[in-house]
């Protein structure tokens, strides 16, 4: 009873010949094996490359290799090479939207103030990029009266960071300091090289170069209470640096180990 047109596709009222609704493509086993071998080789490559120190190139290299693997999987295992182009379009469209998503978010990140969580102060972007150093010394100049060598590259100030467990229980606590304009965090012993405790009243005090940031207290800035506490006890007046120590350097003890 099947009428004559049953298997025809009509477009604009006309029957379309030779239409294909589903692209079947049966590939030989050897092709799949070759693809698998290619994937293994590329995996070995990323693995090996990760031991070579490529520095800043390592991320792009890893991503390129991963993209090559992804292409192999998509083209052969997922049959996109022989599939309906519309399915390829759907997939590529999703990647396009990912690209838009990434691009605009990165624009946003680059035009936004950044928060120095330890201090709860923001760092503004200056012409040359993120100016942590400049801003930090600015805020140092404002906050502490005793940092006399205010001369720029920061007075190697160590910032007690904010891990209550460490401050109260552990042997070490986390400090942040600025190194080449970057924040570096590390664990330091609670007692400095000279056996002097670096915590007073439960508030870690870093005393090198004689500056103490008054607004610092040992709270976890990642909790709401922490945030409140940090702003609530503002000038926990720098306990007169019991380490008038001008010996500049940050806690010698450095991260144990």
């Amino acid at each position, binding site marked *: 009873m099947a009428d004559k047109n049953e298997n025809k596709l009509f477009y604009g009222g006309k029957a379309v010949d030779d239409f294909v609704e589903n692209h079947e493509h049966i590939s030989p086993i050897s092709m799949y094996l070759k693809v698998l071998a290619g994937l293994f080789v590329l995996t070995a490559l990323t693995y090996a490359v990760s031991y070579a120190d490529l520095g800043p190139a390592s991320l792009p290299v890893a991503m390129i290799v991963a993209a090559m693997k992804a292409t192999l*999987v998509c083209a052969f295992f997922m049959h996109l090479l022989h599939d309906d182009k519309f399915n390829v379009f759907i997939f590529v469209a999703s990647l396009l939207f990912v690209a838009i998503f990434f691009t605009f978010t990165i624009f946003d990140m680059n035009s936004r103030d950044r928060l120095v969580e330890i201090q709860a102060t923001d760092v503004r972007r200056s012409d040359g990029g993120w100016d942590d150093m400049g801003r930090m010394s600015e805020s140092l100049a404002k906050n502490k009266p005793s940092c006399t060598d205010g001369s720029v590259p920061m007075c190697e100030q160590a910032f007690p960071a904010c891990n209550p*467990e460490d401050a109260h229980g*552990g042997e070490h606590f986390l400090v942040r300091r600025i190194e080449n304009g*970057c924040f570096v965090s590390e664990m330091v012993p609670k007692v400095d090289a000279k056996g002097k405790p670096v915590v007073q009243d439960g508030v870690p005090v870093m005393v090198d170069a004689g500056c103490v940031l008054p607004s610092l207290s040992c709270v976890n800035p990642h909790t709401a209470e922490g945030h409140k506490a940090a702003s609530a006890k503002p000038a926990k007046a720098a306990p007169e640096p019991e380490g008038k120590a001008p010996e500049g350097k940050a806690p010698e003890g450095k991260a144990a180990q």
Partner: protein
Amino acid sequence: MGNHAKPAKDHAFFQHHFNTVGQQAGAAKMGMWLFLATEVLMFSGLFLAYFIVRALYPEMVLSSHELLDKTMGGINTVVLLTSSFTMAMAVRYAQLGDNKRCATQLLLTMACAFIFMGVKYVEYTGKFSHGVFPGAFFNYDEAIQYAHSHGHSFRGLPHVFFGLYFVMTGLHGIHVLVGIGVIFWVYLRAKKGHFKDGYYAPVENVGLYWHIVDLVWIFLFPLLYLVK
């Protein structure tokens, strides 16, 4: 009848609302691709979070990732790639109507998936037992000792990195579990001999899903475990 088109009610699973079996299979596959597009978008949010955290706190990310076991990650990569191969083979046998071989390949795929989850289990419990928990549960004292015992030291606040690590690999792991479920479903159908006369859309679509799971891991592995 056009000489190129197969007669319509070709196989037992032909649905009456489609014109041809080709249309039915093509529609199913297009639906699957649309779903995969949403999967890509979902994971892209996590990848973007990773890139942002990495850009803002490079030292923290690099010092934290040292704690992940590259070898375990590498084994899992090989396992998952192999499973993608066996899945592709299962689809191929379903295309040929060879239910028996198809079922075998699906079984191998599931075996790989279980190995993958087993390795993940070892990795996760290894981290948990040293206080390396996601986000707020991160135990600094234990984690720092653990890092030191491996000759590493954290810089910055590593719980942020491990938060990302657990969410990204966790969501991926959930996909693997779901994958095991759907592969088992098509395995049962292959056992019943359902795939013949050009009917193999379920195997093909499960295969597409499984490959996207593999695809996500292809990016997760270098980003989380390898990259310096």
